[in-house]
């Protein structure tokens, strides 16, 4: 079977057009990615969807997070910072066991932000809850207020800091949703690790973007918030709870 002249021409034109369009398409993609200087936009709301039926007995996400953010283990479990942890659940009546990663839930109405006296705890327009390391006075009121135990107080001198991730003794810190990666268009380290080496349970995306998979799944499938009774409208949602 041979290609007729007509068909050849048609395919050829299409291929040429495609080749010419490709850079335009990647340009559009580039234009959509955020520059580091660009302010976070309230049109977006970053979030996570975690399917705990897929969450295996591993801690790839925890390791990846702490490596990415330079959170060192000093061998003092009571005071070492934990930005993300694996929580094992066992139903009191049925004894069914489950495991899931828990981190800052990036609430729409975060109690930590409400109580912080200096405004060091704040929520970016795109929903990421952060601590300003320059204005945190280390009062730990936010730790008292967080329902999720998501915050750690830096109990000793910090070593091995990563350039992108400021930390400091005497201040409070928690999951930043890897804001430094998100701002360059990447997914948080935990999500990347889970999808590479773990159970592929974690999905990251813009909850407001109708074309995003996280948006589609949240609208098509049941999901739950941890302590939904507190009505904090968390940015991290779970499936299979």
């Amino acid at each position: 079977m041979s290609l007729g002249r007509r068909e050849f021409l048609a395919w050829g034109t299409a291929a040429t057009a495609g080749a010419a369009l490709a850079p335009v398409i990647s340009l559009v993609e580039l234009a959509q990615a955020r520059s580091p200087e660009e302010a976070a936009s309230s049109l977006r709301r970053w979030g996570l969807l975690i399917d705990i039926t897929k969450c295996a007995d591993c801690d790839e996400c925890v390791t990846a997070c702490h490596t990415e953010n330079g959170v060192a283990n000093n061998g003092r479990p009571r005071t070492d910072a934990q930005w993300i942890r694996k929580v094992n659940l066992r139903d009191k009546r049925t004894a069914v066991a489950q495991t899931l990663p828990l981190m800052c839930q990036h609430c729409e109405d975060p109690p930590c932000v409400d109580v912080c006296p200096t405004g060091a705890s704040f929520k970016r327009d795109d929903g990421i809850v952060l601590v300003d390391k320059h204005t945190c006075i280390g009062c730990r009121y936010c730790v008292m207020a967080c329902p999720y135990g998501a915050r750690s107080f830096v109990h000793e001198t910090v070593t091995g800091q990563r350039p992108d991730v400021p930390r400091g003794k005497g201040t409070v810190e928690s999951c930043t949703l890897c804001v430094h990666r998100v701002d360059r268009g990447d997914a948080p380290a935990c999500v990347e690790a889970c999808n590479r080496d773990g159970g592929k349970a974690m999905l990251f995306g813009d909850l407001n973007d109708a074309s995003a998979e996280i948006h589609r799944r949240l609208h098509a499938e049941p999901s739950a918030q941890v302590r939904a009774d507190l009505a904090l409208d968390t940015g991290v949602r779970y499936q299979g709870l």
Partner: protein
Amino acid sequence: MTPTQFREIEGRSGGFFALLCTLVLLVLAGLGAAWHMEHEGHHVTGMSNRIVWGTPHVFAVFLIVAASGALNVASIASVFGRDLYKPLARLSGLLAVALLAGGLSVLVLDLGRPDRLIVAMTHYNFKSIFAWNIFLYTGFFAVVAVYLWTMFERRMNSHSARAGLLAFVWRLVLTTGTGSIFGFLVARETYNSALLAPLFIVMSFSFGLAVFTLVLMASFRGTGRALGDALIARLTRLLGLFVAAVLYFVLVYHLTNLYIARHHEVERFILLGGGIYTALFWIGQVLVGGVIPLALVFRPGASRSRTAAAAGCVIAGGLAQLYVLIIGGQAFPQALFPGKEVASSFFDGVVASYSPSLAEIALGTGGMALALALTVVGLKVLPFLPQSLSDAAIDPAET
């Protein structure tokens, strides 16, 4: 009634200097402890990521609560027009300021970054009850200072009642603010009660009066001034009343909690199975801080040593009460997933362990010592103390 004569204390005796030196040493020890904690980081304390507010907060909250309560005596005189208490108003104001200064020092020195105090003073989040408290505390100093001025300055005496009323209202708001620091923590079962604010107010009455009575008796004894039995009897009875009120509010607080199913577990923890916290609740808070002082105070036949013992018990019991509330409240695990057993590297689902470190205790007692040292110095430099409070010197009609 002859106008009360006020006079500075001599402050020349060996006993006075020994007292001052001891207090200064305790303050220095507290400062050293704070430096150690800041330098090494809080991992050298008993605190952890689960117990972020430790023993320093117990002392700090006690002092702040007692500060507003110490002002009560002055309020009774000026707001409720009881002339019997008028000669005590100056000391009452002095103690209020000194106790607040002691408490705030502990609070600030326990911050992760006390060097950023200026940040706390220049950046405000008005949604935060903590930020409001900063205003309430600084305002309290100012209001009490003005109040004291109206008492000291003869020309201003006529404004004293109004200043006293302002101070009284301010202190009520301040204690409500302190109680609300805990009451606003929606996620913590232990604190989630509207009763916390009124409870803090009666606690402040009781703790403040206990401190006031002890300081009054000690300073009159130390300076050899006359202190009449009638006045002591009054203060003692008042203390008994406040202690009973605290017990009553504690009872109501726990009864309402027992009525709410989701608070059952935390109630069982505090009242029955909480180890040290249960022991501190029953023995420290209820027995030493409540039942014993009541028995001492209302037993017929007054005695000064019994009043002093009762006041001491109230202070010890108050510290126990705040320990149970602040530290016990954090030790009890937060309900992350109701209906499920939880376990994690963050000690979710288990009672957090905590034992106070020496540094924390030193910082806390340093704050107490600072409050007393300020009081002692105040008594020496300004005429806070009446020359005599003998029964004859105070209004017999009132007794």
